[in-house]
């Protein structure tokens, strides 16, 4: 399983306010809140930990098929600046995060050495629906190239819980695909 999450740092500043009362407490453990408040770049740390939780959640929900909304249950450990672990109950996911001045992007996996193909796309398309169509097309083009498959026979279907699945000639494939978008950025990983 693989999960990804991107946060557009400018967009999120305009659309979400983590400084509002009780926000941090709903989302982060005491230890995580300490990490945020003692950080030099608090805004970046909030969304770095958030993207770790979201990416790990996507792995978990694909694996167990049960959706829930409780980011605090996903507990982050930062191992280095870009590597981390997210624990939920007794289950562990490994994360790798890229931080730039524009975005924070995390990929979570069940095993640390699982190979991943990923790409980040900056789009000017303002509509979420258009962004989503473009992202899926880029993802399929990349899958076709990497796996040597015929692009015209590839398609993405969504499961009941909204997770993407890759089909080839109308047959479900074992390819794990994960998609994310936020503001100007979207990304796929498989």
């Amino acid at each position, binding site marked *: 399983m693989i999960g990804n999450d991107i*946060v557009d740092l400018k967009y*999120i500043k305009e*659309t*979400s*306010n983590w400084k*509002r*009362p*009780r*926000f941090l407490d*709903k*989302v982060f453990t005491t230890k995580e809140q300490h990490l945020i408040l003692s950080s030099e770049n608090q805004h970046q740390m909030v969304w770095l930990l*958030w993207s770790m939780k*979201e990416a790990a959640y996507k792995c978990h929900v694909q694996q167990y098929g049960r*959706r*829930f*909304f*409780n*980011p*605090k*249950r996903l507990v982050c450990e930062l191992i280095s600046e870009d590597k981390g672990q997210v624990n939920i109950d007794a289950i562990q996911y490994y994360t790798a995060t890229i931080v730039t001045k524009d975005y924070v992007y995390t990929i979570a996996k069940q095993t640390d050495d699982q190979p991943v193909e990923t790409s980040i796309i900056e789009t000017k398309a303002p509509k*979420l629906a258009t962004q989503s169509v473009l992202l899926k097309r880029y993802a399929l083009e990349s899958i076709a190239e990497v796996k040597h498959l015929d692009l015209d026979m590839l398609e993405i279907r969504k499961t009941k*819980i*909204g997770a993407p699945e890759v089909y080839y000639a109308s047959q479900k494939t074992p390819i794990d695909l994960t998609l994310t978008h*936020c503001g100007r950025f979207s990304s796929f990983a498989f």
Partner: protein
Amino acid sequence: MTKDELIAKLKTIVQPYIQDEAAFDNLSEDTDFINDLKINSANLVDVILDVEDEFDIRIENDDMEKMISVKAAMGIVNEKLAEK
């Protein structure tokens, strides 16, 4: 509060965060906050905090965990209001 009144209040709360107008126009008990209304998950925290403020209740994380649809949110709000 009647069911319709509660749905109307929740509809007002979620409006600033929705990214799918058609799903919002057709909002019902069965509407999913993320899959239908396309509310991003950071804004789902805002929805929960707004619900707490609007109804003057506190939602613990164990309850919040279920709040992914209008129906689930209605259940939690009613439960919390009954406890008051």
